[in-house]
Each structure stands twice: as C-alpha cells, then as structure tokens.
C-alpha cells in the first residue's frame, strides 16, 4: 500500500523563450542620472552588439515568478521528505543558515575590499578553519576549493608538490613518483582529479568484504614510483576501512602520501578523525556533512585539510591570524598556487560555520550517531528482502543490490523508478561500480523513524511487486507528470539549447 504519496493536479509550463512576448518588461532601473554621451563616442559601432539580443526573453515580473514557481513544483526536495541518495548526505538545510548568509555585511562585502575593513569575513573563515582542523585532526586548512572534486584536485596537487619538494623531482620528470593508487570502488572524480594532476592511476581491488585489498595494495606499493593513495572512508560501500592505519602505514613506507575523500565524513564527525588514522590530506564536502544546500547541483564547498607537513603546499592566499587581526597571506613559496579566484565559496563557509555552532560539539557527534543509526535501521529492515553484497556492518549508508529481483527481470533502475510512485526520491543507483546493480541508501540523521519505516515498507512492497506484478515495476513511475525519458535517443541527437524552431504550445 502506498502511504506516503498520491497524485494531484500540477501546472504545465513552457520554456521562458516560448513564453516570451515582445515588449514585456520585468524590471525597471532608476533613470540615468548623468549626462548621456552619444553611444558612438563611447564605443565604435563595430564593438557593439548588433543583434538587439534577439531571442532573449521578454517577460513581466508575474510571468517570471509564475514560470519559476511552476517548474519548481516539479522537483522532489529535502523539505518533502527522505532523500536517500547514498554518498550525497541529503540532510536538512537550515533556514537559519540561509538567513546568516544573507546578512548585508557579508553578502555585500567585495572580495577585494581592504583587509582591515573585512575582518568579520576573515574571522568567519579563520574560525571555520579551526573547527574543521579539530574535526579532521588535520591542522592545515584551505577553504578555497569550490566543491569536492575541486578539493580532490587541490589535495592531490599538494601531494604532487610535497613529493617533488621532498624528492627534489620538481623539474625531473623521469624520477617523479607518478602512480596514484585508487580503489576500484572510488568515485569517478578521484581518478579524474588524479589524472588532471598528472598522475597515472592504478586501481586497487576490493576484497569480498568490500574493503581495500591490503595484499594488492602492498603489491602495487612494491612497484615503487607510488605517489600516494586516494581512499574514501567509510568507503563508497558504506563500510569503514578498519585497516586504515595499516593502509596508511603501507603507503607511507612506500614513500607515498594518503589522500582521503571526505565525502562520507557524516559517519565520523565527533567519533573518529582522519588525522588520527594516518591520513595526510582530505577534502570535506561542506554541502554534505555540513548541510550547505545542494542547490540542484551546487554551489558546494570542498575545503582541504592536511598535516603540518603538507601545510606549506596549501593554496594561497591563506587566512591567518596574528593576535586580534586576521590576514590574507600570499607569501607561501611552496604553495601549489591558486585553485580559484578570491577565497572560495564564502557563502557556504558562513553556512557551515553556522551549522557547527548551532550543533555544538555534542550536537555534531549526536548527528553522526543519528545518521549511522538511521542507516542501520534501514539495513536491518531490508536485510531479508534484498541482497546485501557485503555483510560488514554499514556506517551512515547501506548498500544493497538487485540480485534477487533481477532474476525476475526487475533491475535496480526499475526499483528506483517505482520508489517514485511510493513518494520517495530513489537511492543512489549503480554506484559503486564494483557492485552489480548497486543501491546505495543514505538516510542521514534528518529523517524520523516513521518515515524510515515507510521507506522500508515501500521497498518490501516493491520486492513483492517484482514477483507478483513485475509489469508495474518495469513501467514505473506511473504517477509523475512525465514517464521515463529516452536518454539514449537524447544522447544520440543532443538538443542542448532552445531554438525558435522548437516552439511548443506555450503558456
């Protein structure tokens, strides 16, 4: 029985371009208050636009408000309920933090304003750095990276720079340590970031338990030339790498450094610290663990935290403090340089600091416990119904597969689509890649018992349907304004922008 959702009337809405009507105006400026100069005096005609912005929409303010309000209602979102995307940590986005980020003294502050007149902003960044250092156990922090992958790039480049400095290989291509080890379960951004930083990626096998294969790691480390390891912990199967200390030791002995992908820190905050495990550098996803809104795909923030040894290689500028005053420090000769203009996604720094201060140290641990508990609750509830590839106890997310259902021709994608009819956003599917038909479920701490149970019941219902009424599952979703879209066709003949040709029946 579907308890969480039903169907209701919903508005259609064309593209803004299809809605546009010549002569409509949505905004008005104050009148120009200086003597007007003839355009030709300002700019010769050949430097000026000559297309009168043909095609750019013309709408009134109510048109715009209705357009975006209508299409917004087509989105599932955290405020509608459980959003169990594994690896994404879709936790509650506090309104308070949104308010904080909009305080005029922050929102209206120009990044190139004199430091003495930006002390409040620098204090925010400095304090956040301090707290992230304490949470990760890694003292060196840069808030500059704009997202997780950006943080990876930064961290891996720091490893590059640190090794070159240590081995004196900055200018000696040949002798350079070039091999970055990455488990086969890793997120795609890991190898991509390593590649961008000039490393060649070697893949480490996972054990049947879903852990990094230590022997394979040793073997690969033996080959020499190992620059380091990129490890996610808990890993993307939701399992804590219990050999983490040994793993780090092996890499260190081989002369490499250990990068930790901190995407899953929501399982560890206040409970264990990467710095205490032997990790050299990590990135955090403030838009996951620290609740800054995902925004339909960003903005994020991916601070890097590292050991004292790696600190000299962090991006410039650094935010430092001498006594009462905060400074932007540029004079860091060993720094990898800048990875972004200005200082990172400051608006996200504000929200993350607000998150940390609102929770307090006990609240941070409480959130971790609640997140892991919720994942355990689901793992337990679904244990008899779905195949669990690994039986190690899950941390903040639990992994299942479609093994049992696929025998009946019902696959992970179908189960995910059918969940939509039950009123849920599906879990992360087909990730990690090493697990066939993976379903990675991360409830986070932000959902209550009743809804967790609803989810478990829905999944069991779907499993039952898979047996008794596969068609219903295969044809899902049945309750949405559009059905499954033909993504293959879309990729074959990509239409990536609107052109007047495609005008549809507009509103």
């Amino acid at each position, binding site marked *: 029985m579907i308890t969480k959702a039903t169907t209701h009337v919903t508005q259609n809405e064309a593209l*803004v371009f299809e809605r*546009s009507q010549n002569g409509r*105006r*949505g905004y008005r*400026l104050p009148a*120009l208050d200086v003597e007007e*100069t003839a355009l030709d005096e*300002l*700019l*010769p005609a*050949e430097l000026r*636009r000559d297309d009168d912005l043909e095609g750019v*929409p013309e709408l009134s303010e109510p048109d715009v408000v209705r357009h*975006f*309000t209508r299409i917004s209602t087509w989105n599932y*979102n955290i405020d509608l309920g459980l959003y169990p995307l594994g690896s994404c940590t879709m936790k509650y986005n506090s309104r308070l933090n949104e308010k904080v980020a909009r305080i005029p*003294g*922050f929102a209206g502050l*120009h*990044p190139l304003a*004199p430091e003495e007149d930006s002390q*409040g902003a620098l*204090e925010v960044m400095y304090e956040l750095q301090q707290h992230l250092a*304490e949470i990760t156990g890694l003292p060196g922090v840069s808030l500059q990276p704009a997202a997780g992958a*950006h943080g990876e790039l930064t961290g891996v480049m720091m490893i590059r720079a640190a090794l070159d400095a240590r081995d004196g290989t900055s200018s000696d291509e040949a002798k350079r340590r070039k091999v970055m080890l990455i488990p086969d379960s890793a997120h*795609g951004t890991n*190898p991509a*970031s390593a*590649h*961008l930083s000039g490393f060649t990626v070697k893949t480490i096998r996972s054990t049947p338990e879903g852990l990094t294969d230590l022997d394979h790691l040793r073997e690969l480390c033996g080959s020499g030339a190992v620059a380091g390891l990129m490890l996610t912990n808990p890993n993307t199967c939701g399992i804590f790498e*219990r050999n983490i*200390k040994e793993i780090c030791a092996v890499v260190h002995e081989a002369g490499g450094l250990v990068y930790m992908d901190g995407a899953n820190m929501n399982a560890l*905050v206040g409970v*264990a*610290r990467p710095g205490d495990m032997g990790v050299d550098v990590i990135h955090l996803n403030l838009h996951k663990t620290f609740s800054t*809104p*995902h*925004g*339909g795909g960003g903005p994020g923030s991916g601070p890097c935290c590292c050991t004292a040894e790696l600190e000299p290689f962090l991006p410039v500028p650094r935010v430092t403090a001498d006594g009462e005053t905060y400074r932007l420090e540029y004079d860091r000769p060993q720094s990898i340089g800048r990875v*972004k*203009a*200005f200082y990172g996604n400051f*608006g*996200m720094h504000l929200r993350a600091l*607000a998150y*940390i*201060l609102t*929770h*307090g140290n006990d*609240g941070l641990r409480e*959130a971790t416990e*609640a997140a892991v508990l919720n994942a355990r609750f689901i793992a337990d509830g679904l244990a008899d119904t779905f195949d669990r590839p690994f039986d190690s*106890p899950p941390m903040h997310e639990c992994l299942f597969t479609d093994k049992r259902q696929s025998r009946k021709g019902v696959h992970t994608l179908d189960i995910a689509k059918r969940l939509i009819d039950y009123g849920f956003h*599906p879990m992360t599917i087909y990730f990690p890649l090493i697990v066939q038909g993976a379903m990675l479920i991360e409830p986070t701490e*932000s959902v209550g018992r009743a809804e967790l149970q609803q989810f478990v019941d829905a999944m069991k219902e779907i499993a039952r349907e898979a047996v008794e009424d596969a068609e219903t599952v295969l044809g899902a979703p049945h309750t949405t*304004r559009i*059905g499954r879209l033909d993504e293959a066709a*879309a990729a074959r003949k*990509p239409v*990536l922008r609107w052109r007047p040709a495609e005008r549809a029946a507009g509103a």
Partner: protein
Amino acid sequence: MRYIPNSPEERLEMLRGLGLGSAEELFDSLPPDVLLKRPLDTPVALSEPELLERFEAMAAKNAAARRPSFLGAGAYSHYAPTIVDSLIQRSEFFTAYTPYQPEISQGTLQAIFEFQTLVCQLTGMDVANASMYDGSTAMAEAVLMAERVTRRTRVLVSPAVHPEYMRVTETYVAHAGIELGRLGFDEDAGRTTFDAAQLDKTVAAVVVQSPNFFGCVEDVKSFADAVHAAGALLVVVVTEAASFGLLRSPGACGADIVVAEGQSFGVPVSYGGPYVGLFATREKYARQIPGRLAGVAYDKEGRRGFVLTLATREQHIRREKATSNICTNEGLIALAATIYMTTLGRQGLQEVAAQCAQKAAYARRQIGALEGFSVPHSAPVFNEFVVRAPSDAAALLRKLASGHNVTGGLALGRYFPGRPNDILVCVTETNKRADIDALVAGLKEVQS
C-alpha cells in the same frame, strides 16, 4: 539537537530494536585506536538568537560593506530584482540535488536548459554547459579543452586577463603538459597585442579577456582570423557579464570558446563566492566540453522533458579519461543568473549595460580632468578604467576610505608592483551620480 527528528528516547528504542545497547556500539566496526575518546574541542551549541547575534557582530566588522564602492576587478555590484533571491529560496530549488532522476527533477532540468540557452544567446555561441565553479576555473578548463581539441600544448595568454584567473590557470595546467606563453600589451591603448610570428603550429589557443582587466574593450575580431589561420582556438574571457548587453558578442567576433564569470547576473559579491562560471563553445566541440549538459528528451507518450546528457564525457563513466573532474557545479547560482537574465530580459540587459557605460564615461571624464590625475589608456572602456594618481594609490585609497567613507577602487599595485599609482575604478548602474561626484571631490582633496 533540534535538527534531528528522532528524540534521544526514540533513538534508544531504535538501538534496542537493533540489539544494540548504546550509540557507541554503532561504531564497533572501527578499531578502538582510531576512536576519538574525548568531546570535540569546538564551541558548545548556540541558540538561534545567540547565533544570529554572533554573526551580526562579525558582519558589523566588515566596514567596507557599508560604504559606496567603486571596486570591480572580477566582482561587480549590480541591482538584483527582489524576485531572484525569493525564487531561489524555494526549497524545491535550493534543497534539491543534481537532477539524476528526471521524472522528479524537471524543474531543475528545465532551468538548466534555459540557462544554457541564455548563455548561448549572450555569448553568441552554439553550446553552453550547466556551469563551472567560476570564471577563473572556467578559463583554466577552456585551456585544457583547447589542448584536447587541438592536441597542441602551447597557449598564449593576454597579459590583460584577470591576474587571479591567470594564477588559477597556471595551477590547473601545471601537470597537463601545457606551456603558457604571453601576448604583448600596448600601454597607451590599454590593449593586448601580438605578432603573428608567435602563432606557430604548437599553439593550441590564444586567450584574451574583453573588456580586459584594465577595463579596455579588446578588438577581439582582429585576433580571430590569424588565430584560426594558425589552427588554434580563440578563447575569450569575460569577467563582467553585464557587458554582454552592449558589446559585440564573442561569438560574433570569432571566438571558439567563451568563458565568463556570471556573478553580475543577480549574484551578491559575497566576499568572492559562490559565483558561477559560464562556458560556451561551438557545436563541433560539444563532446569536448567539460561539466554537465542538459538536453531535450521525450517519454513514451512523446512528452518533452529534459535530462542530463552526454554523460560519457564525465568522470562517473570516463573516470580518468573524463573531459573534466567537475561534478557538483554552481547549480543554484546558475538558476539565480537565469532568473536575473529572464527578469531583466532583452531590453533590461541592454539598459544595464548602457547605464554602466554611461556612468563610467561620466566618472572617467571627471577624474581625468582632475589636476594630477590621468587616465592612461586610450582604448574604449565598458565600466572600468585605470586612473593614474599622482601618488601611491593604496595610501590614497586608505585616506579616501577613512576620510570620505568611499572605497575608491582597487590599487593595482596589489597585482602589478609596476603600477604603484594606478587605481582600477569600476562604475555600475548602482553608483549614483552623487557618489561619483563625492569620489571625484574626495580624490581631489586627499591628494592635495
């Protein structure tokens, strides 16, 4: 903790249901020696009123935020319609994730498709992606893409691109086997120069910014033919997106890749971020573009929808062979920019650009006429220009700030030690005539 639905009692019941005696047991899979055996050394919890007070107090220390300002240089103050911020605060938009499930993410997907189209229209290009982190990383990605497209390794960059964009690009290409060369600069004109000789067969791309960092509008067209003749790509960088409303589009000037900072489109300066990088190119390079793309798709009943497409370029599938490592981009900021562009619309975008140019021209005239001050560059400008002061710029600006409560611009010495007396002044539609006149009066006074 009030953000956690399950009460402590409920959690205890759940633990018991799992056969666990305490929350600690949830972490039994961790070796004891990695467990943190003490409370985190971070502050105790603050209530809402305490938290707001704390942040208000810090915000109050940002004196610069309360002053009329003529700062630009990559971050611009423009009026933003109220509806931009109220619409992006709908939880349907700001709490949603990347639209991996199109059936319940059409709002986000359609908005991305509209964003891509608007970016194409303004830049004069065929294809745009769903956004990059910001303008600087977009430039770096453009350089990397040029290498992929041309399989060449030298990239010539104008010395008049934003210095921070240059630094970021240097970092990005450090290990990509790409060598960055410099074009020339005509100090009188304030424009980039280059001699065709530089353009050999190793050159993957030529990168110019227009309006350039010094505010001068480059004659982009004049580069295009030579660059293309050499088989290289022309990459045009724009830091002030408001200029699209007035200046010939890079596409119309022959650009192959256009990257821009979209912050001007309704996004607060917010001490440097979050902003949004625009990235557009020609049809033929569509599959080389970094980042996400939304495209049209249809369901069985033929209903139109939108999906993330051409994902085979991306790291989820291509791993290290991906066109980029970017995953999360700047979705909500791209949405804000989309709402801004839609609200201002065809006429409004042109008006904003025109007012910027008019007010900058007015300010430039007034300051240029000041005893002891000069405007060194002769090329036409949009809304920024260099002012050469009779004495140290930084000191002079400090005096302006303290004595006249105005942030007069940027002391270029920060980036160019060779320009100790130069000030980069930016004027937008938000600078009132009275503010401009006050700046002029202030400059006059502080230097005498």
